[in-house]
């Protein structure tokens, strides 16, 4: 059974009598270990889909099953727990808390899952090591470059060992060089067996992932799986040089 199952999901906004279908009857499965990119033009509904997948938003219609939990039946409290334990979210604008240090930011999800402060520290440092920021633990987010901030956000997304990581245009706010480094990081994480879904409107980035879903006007326009198509899954960029 798939890790995530979307069935006939729609998200409909009503603006002054006008109906906006941000998502229109989408069905989608994501298996454990997959590395997926979701691509589409601006306003096509990528972020909306991400938010619904990440349990930050609820669909107007349809059902979602995540790791055997029916999301639409879950209480607010259970949703908070799922966001905390099973999902890691990476945002375009990093969304770190400016008043906390890098380490504290990475610790934050564990604060809400009741992990002891010692274990919090150890695991946060471990996650920072994974994104090669362990020497910046004491810094404030504002003292880091954009790429470093995004790596901090990735460490935060990973720290509770989620089932799946969602990233909404994680490179959208970075220059192409830094963006590529972030992408390499995701690739590496995927190689280690993590399930990752990322949103982009850059076909070059989408080309890196084995599976590619194209969205247009809230509908899935194309679902390209390199494995099924038999195409090579070798990424275009060189792996794994570090900056």
């Amino acid at each position, binding site marked *: 059974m798939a890790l995530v199952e979307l069935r006939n999901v729609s998200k409909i906004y009503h603006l002054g009598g006008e109906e906006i279908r941000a998502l229109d009857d989408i069905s989608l499965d994501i298996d454990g270990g997959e590395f997926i990119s979701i691509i589409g033009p601006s306003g096509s509904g990528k972020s909306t889909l991400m*938010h619904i997948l*990440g349990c*930050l*938003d609820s669909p107007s219609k349809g059902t979602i099953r995540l790791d055997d939990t029916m999301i639409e039946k879950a209480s*607010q*409290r259970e949703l*908070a*727990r799922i*966001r*905390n*334990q099973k999902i890691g*979210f990476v*945002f375009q604008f990093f*969304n*770190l*808390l400016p*008043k906390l240090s890098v380490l504290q930011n990475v610790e*934050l*999800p564990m*604060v*809400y*899952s*009741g992990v002891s402060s010692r274990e919090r520290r150890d695991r946060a440092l471990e996650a920072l090591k994974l994104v090669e920021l362990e020497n910046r633990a004491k810094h404030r987010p504002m003292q880091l470059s954009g790429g470093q901030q995004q790596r901090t956000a990735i460490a*935060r997304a990973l720290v*509770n060992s989620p089932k799946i990581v969602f990233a909404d245009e994680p490179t959208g706010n970075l220059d192409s060089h830094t963006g590529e480094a972030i992408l390499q990081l995701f690739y590496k994480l995927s190689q280690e067996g993590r399930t990752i879904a990322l949103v982009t409107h850059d076909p070059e980035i989408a080309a890196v992932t084995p599976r590619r879903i194209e969205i247009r006007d809230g509908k899935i326009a194309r679902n390209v799986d390199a494995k099924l198509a038999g195409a090579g899954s070798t990424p275009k960029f060189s792996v794994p040089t570090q900056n």
Partner: protein
Amino acid sequence: MNFLSAISVGLKEIWANKFRSMLTMLGIVLGVGSLVAQSALVKGLENGMKEALIAIGGLEKVYITPQAIPTWQQHRKDQAVGNTMNDIYALQRSAPLVHLVTPEMQTREVTVTRAGKAFNPWHFVGTWPAALELNQHVVEHGRMFNAVDDEEARSVCVIGTGTRDALFGSPEEIGREIIPVGEYVNINNQRFRIIGMFEHYESEMDRKAREQALERGPEPGQSGPTRKRGRTSGRGAFEWKNNTVYIPLKTMWLKFRAGAVGGGTGTGTTAGSSTTASVSASAGIDTAPDPRLSTVYFKVIDLDQMNNALQQVKNVLTHTHNGIEDFAFNTQENWSENITTAIRNARLSGGIIAAISLLVGGVGIMNIMLASITERVREIGIRKAIGATFLDVFVQILVESVVIAVIGGLAGLLASKGLVELLSLVSPTGNTPVMTVDAMLLAFGFSVCVGILAGIIPAFKAARLNPIQALRYE
């Protein structure tokens, strides 16, 4: 998120906005400060009043004074006898609910002189030795006159320190305390020997002030006026006692009543105590000395039995007064009720003022918390996105509000101390304010409640934020 980390997050948030938080706390500081300070002042007032009440003999003391004959008894006017020694003996015999029945005979316009100094005592009375216990006098030097002094009508007197100060000079003026026991004074030109002097009566506050002045050592130019201020601080009950002159009842009768009318005699009906024999020498009815007592004092043995005791006394006196109601009871209850009312009013008005400033403080906190969550919508969205529950966010904001209130409350307790000292400086003749733990706990508890109440709405608003809307918020 556990409670401790919520507190530390709250503290950090407050620290990050030091100035703003401080301004917000000000209302709470003032509220708590004024609540504690006013209750300290009222407590001081209460203590002072209680001291004074004890000084005048306590609530048990009742005295009977003459009263105009009621109109419906006017036709029997000639049978009215007034308060006499008969009353005293009758009460001693037939009123077991009261004790220390004491007669007092007063003479006005008395001048005590000695070596060119003259003094009009505030309270010059002939009485029995029991007056000592009745009025809670303490003879510090010499002795009180006794039954023999009274029987023999000796020319002896016991005085208060105020009388001493006027005739011999006060310790402050002279630099040492004069104990005039054994000295002679003239009272309306009759020679009296001082056989005893009471201790110096003063309020707790005056005593402390005097001791402090003593510790500081005598400053020649300063010590006099300082002391004077302490003495004229309006503590009537104490000064009254200090300016007393007591002589035996019989001496009073013979030398100032019977003697004053030139050896005149009583009508024989109800002459005072054992004086009848010696006084009934001669003279006509029109010049008869007045046998009436100024006041009859007694104490109720059991305060709870006050009404029964008064009824009993009334029954006895109705008999001795031939059924004519020419006497009235005076208790300290009215006085004490007035004080209680005054204190309650002071407490109430002070409490209302403090409550209003706490309320204003609470509104201030709520306002700042609402502003703060509006500023932090994004932060709250992020926290919710990574797993904070409704309760997590609710507690975080509530704790912040309570922490502000608690810090404000603690600062208020400190401020109240300063406030009390300031007030004592401004009005040094008042009663020493007493800061009670009760008042401090109450005020602090109030500030915590205010913090909680002020935090609920902002905390609810923050906790209900939809993470998506919060994250999209710019």
